[in-house]
């Protein structure tokens, strides 16, 4: 019972905390343009790769730090996307938050 209450409390705190959080100090127009340029370059580089299917990769940039989120389908693509993004001009670091898409039915009910 205590565990359950703790989990519910944790969930509520996270939701409220996230929801209550406001945005940080605004960036200048030049900074925004620089971030956007990096995002465009990384997206182009990902799309240009002959083997990587990057349709569901989301790219964010913040002062040269690129964050990859979304998902890919094959395990090697997790590494490939990070490598490609890291090779783009202006990228100082890559935060790889990509997930692996495994959404089919991975289980089967069976007796015994």
């Amino acid at each position, binding site marked *: 019972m205590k*565990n359950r209450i703790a989990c519910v409390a944790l969930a509520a705190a996270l939701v409220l905390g996230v929801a209550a959080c406001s945005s940080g100090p605004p960036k200048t127009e030049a900074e925004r343009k620089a971030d956007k340029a990096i995002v465009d370059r990384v997206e182009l580089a990902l799309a240009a790769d002959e083997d990587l299917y990057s349709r569901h990769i989301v790219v964010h940039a913040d002062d040269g730090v690129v964050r990859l989120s979304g998902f890919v389908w094959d*395990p090697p693509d997790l590494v490939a996307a990070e490598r490609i993004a890291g090779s783009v001009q202006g990228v100082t670091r890559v935060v790889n938050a990509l997930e692996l898409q*495994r959404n089919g039915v991975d289980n089967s009910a069976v007796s015994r």
Partner: protein
Amino acid sequence: MMIGNRARDSFAPALAVLLVVFSYSVRTSAQTPSSQELENKLRALQEQVTELNKELQALKEQQQQQSQDVQKATVAATQATETAGKQQSAFNNFMKGFFGTLDASVDYTTKGMGGLNAYEWSYASGAPGSPFVQGAQKAPPYGRVGWLGAMSSNGSNIGYRGTHRIGKSDVDFIYQVATAFDVVAAPGLQNTWTKQSNTVQGAIGLGDTYVGFLKKDWGRVRFGELYLPYKTSTDRLNPFSGELGNYSVIMGNTGGDNRVEFGTRMDHVFDYSSPNFNGVSFDLGYAFGQQVDPNSNLVPLGSSDCAGSNVPGSGNLPINCDDGGFDDAYSADVKFDSHGLYLVAAYEMHKRVNRSSDGDGSNNPLYNYWVSGGPNGPNAQYLDWADYQAYAAEYPEAAPAGTPEFATAYDVADEWAMKFGGQYSFDFGLTISYLYEDLHRDLPQVMEYQNERQRTGQWVALEQLINGGIDRIAVGWAHAGATVGDPGGQHNFNPNGIGKNQANMYTVGWWHKLDKQLTVYFDAADTVNDGNAHFDIGAGGHGIKTDCHDATHALFIDYSSAGPTTWGGCHEIGVSTGVNFRF
């Protein structure tokens, strides 16, 4: 504009002509004395000049108006283009939210049961402690248990994932709706003699479906039907996902057969994923059990199936969720991921798992010992519900009016698993993966003899990219350690073989990309079971299961063979070739 210019150009010479005419007229009038005529002509000419000036002014105004109109039209066209661009971008973003994969294969597999024999067993003295005595031989495996061709849909799904920025904050509301469907067969419950479930294949919501919140610096929370962190944290170590011989045949699969207990998608899940701290991240998951029965015997509130992924009655108990139903589940992982190195540790707990259906099979000499005194006899307290129900069905004249109450000795206990492993990807395209797993079922000592859920497992995979990533080949090996006990549910259970239920699985695969989205593959797997083990080659996502069940589908032959008859020691082999398209 052109008309205006042309008019201006033509009226200037006209004015010059008029002035010449006027001068000539003046000179002529000096020669002719009629002043009245001259005055009239002059007035007429002045009127013409005035009219021409008016027309010239009108043309100038018209030209100005046209210029303004053109400017307005240009602005309007620019605005329309921008609006259309925004709409197109919004539409593209919307369309980008759709995703899916279509995967179908042609398989050729064998259950490898040829030559397996089953015998009756009993105690020499009729009671535990005395040697086992082998009795008469029983019937061999029934049905087509050799090589068989099949077409299979493997992990095919379709879904939509989106985000919605909340007001002017930097917090996103996130959502996903998915469904898993069959590419090669009509949707439905697909209940068979080895699988009983109320879950509708192809229905919206069968697949990771959730709502949640995401803030880059805070992490992500989700609520929905989801895989738990224990499962997702090691997905990348499994190059054979959805195919024959993928690691879920043994890893996370506590009892063999097709169900992957520590790798199943759960209802009513809350999870949290942390941000990435210099390569380190963690995930927490909790599944509300929503279980009213203290022994996890009922379908959870709001669910369509028992928590153990089957319908009440699976395991031949028509009312209860006692074939692995459980209450709350907790799951967590911690990961390190940087420069091709991935390290992971994960843990998951299932509370109050009801395994009464794991009761002693009639091939276990204990079965006869328990029932020798009748359902209310001196040994009946050790006979769990599965045994009792089976006994009552087989000997209705001996069944009492009521059923025995549960006691701690009955088969309801916590199950937990932990695993750790790693992966490293070399620059030349080789990826090495290793995973070690420890599965536990916390049974009291008196029940340990039938604990087939507690063991270790290992997985090793080598994966090599070739032709610049166009081709990929992989080999894998999984090993299931011996369990603590065995209820003897296999039709050919050998009581002298307690602990002889290890298994090894070998898998090879080749994938060739026709383009970024379309892949063809070939895959082969071989599972070698010890005499009492019954692992398969299709658990964990492959559509068609090739397992250790023969074709027996009579309700009761004896308890151990009720429904699907399981044969320990089967040796499944399969090859599969298919196509996979994702969008």
